[in-house]
């Protein structure tokens, strides 16, 4: 996906994205717990800066936004509980119940240091690192 992003960006174009991760240094047991609660690709071991460099990005910057992620998850949970009745008519009892339990597990996981969220930004390099970039695209 990062290589596809590089292909469509003009030289010098900018990329910014948030992603949820399992922080480095956790025990195997905690990593497993984090994988169960977090999104499907949360436990990727390769670091995003190395992925970005490999895909031809430079000027890579990262900002930890875990505190904001926790605050946002808490607001989702609180708002869901406040409007539970209205949501039940739309999502059904099971849907609302599952949603609330998932939010609670996620809040617990962030508070326990199992999940973090980061904002990455990077610039598309001018130099072509991959010869096939210049040749292979059907959308050129």
């Amino acid at each position: 996906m990062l290589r596809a992003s590089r292909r469509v960006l003009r030289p010098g174009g900018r990329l910014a994205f948030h992603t949820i991760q399992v922080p480095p240094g956790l025990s195997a047991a905690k990593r497993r717990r984090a994988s169960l609660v977090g999104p499907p690709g949360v436990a990727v071991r390769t670091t995003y800066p190395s992925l970005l460099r490999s895909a031809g990005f430079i000027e890579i910057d990262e900002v930890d936004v875990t505190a904001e992620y926790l605050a946002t998850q808490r607001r989702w949970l609180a708002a869901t509980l406040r409007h539970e009745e209205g949501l039940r008519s739309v999502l059904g009892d099971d849907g609302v119940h599952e949603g609330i339990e998932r939010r609670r597990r996620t809040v617990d996981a962030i508070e326990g240091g199992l999940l973090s969220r980061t904002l990455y930004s990077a610039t598309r390099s001018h130099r072509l690192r991959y010869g096939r970039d210049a040749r292979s695209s059907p959308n050129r």
Partner: protein
Amino acid sequence: MSVQQTTSARLSDVVVHSLIETERFGQRYAVSGEAAPRTVELEALGSDYRATGYTTREQADDIGRLLELGPGSVLLDIGAGCGWPGLYLATTLGCSVVSVDPIMEGCSAALDRIGSDDLGPRALALLGTGEQLPIRSGSIDAIVHADVMC
């Protein structure tokens, strides 16, 4: 195994994205325009774009500044769902935006929003994935996505 189960299992081998995930997001977007989910979204994120993730309005504004978006620039929003934050940034900063998502219901909602916000000349909503973008090489000034890679 019934014919239906066999077909479903076969389709799971064929498609790139999980059928369960596709169905889950489709169902989510199909109801995200109802009153109660929109109220919850506004209280959680400060947005009213049928968003279901974690990028707040404040963070969307930060991204707009980080990417130096403005009139004349073209933003690509990958995995945009119903259009948050790409369509919001197009409205507030005057940039053009291409909103790409693999889920039909998300694209449809984004198209509705483009129409209601009168963004037509400056916004597109296309079906596509982050790996296979229906976009010409070197044509985009900036890209945003949120929690698509995890």
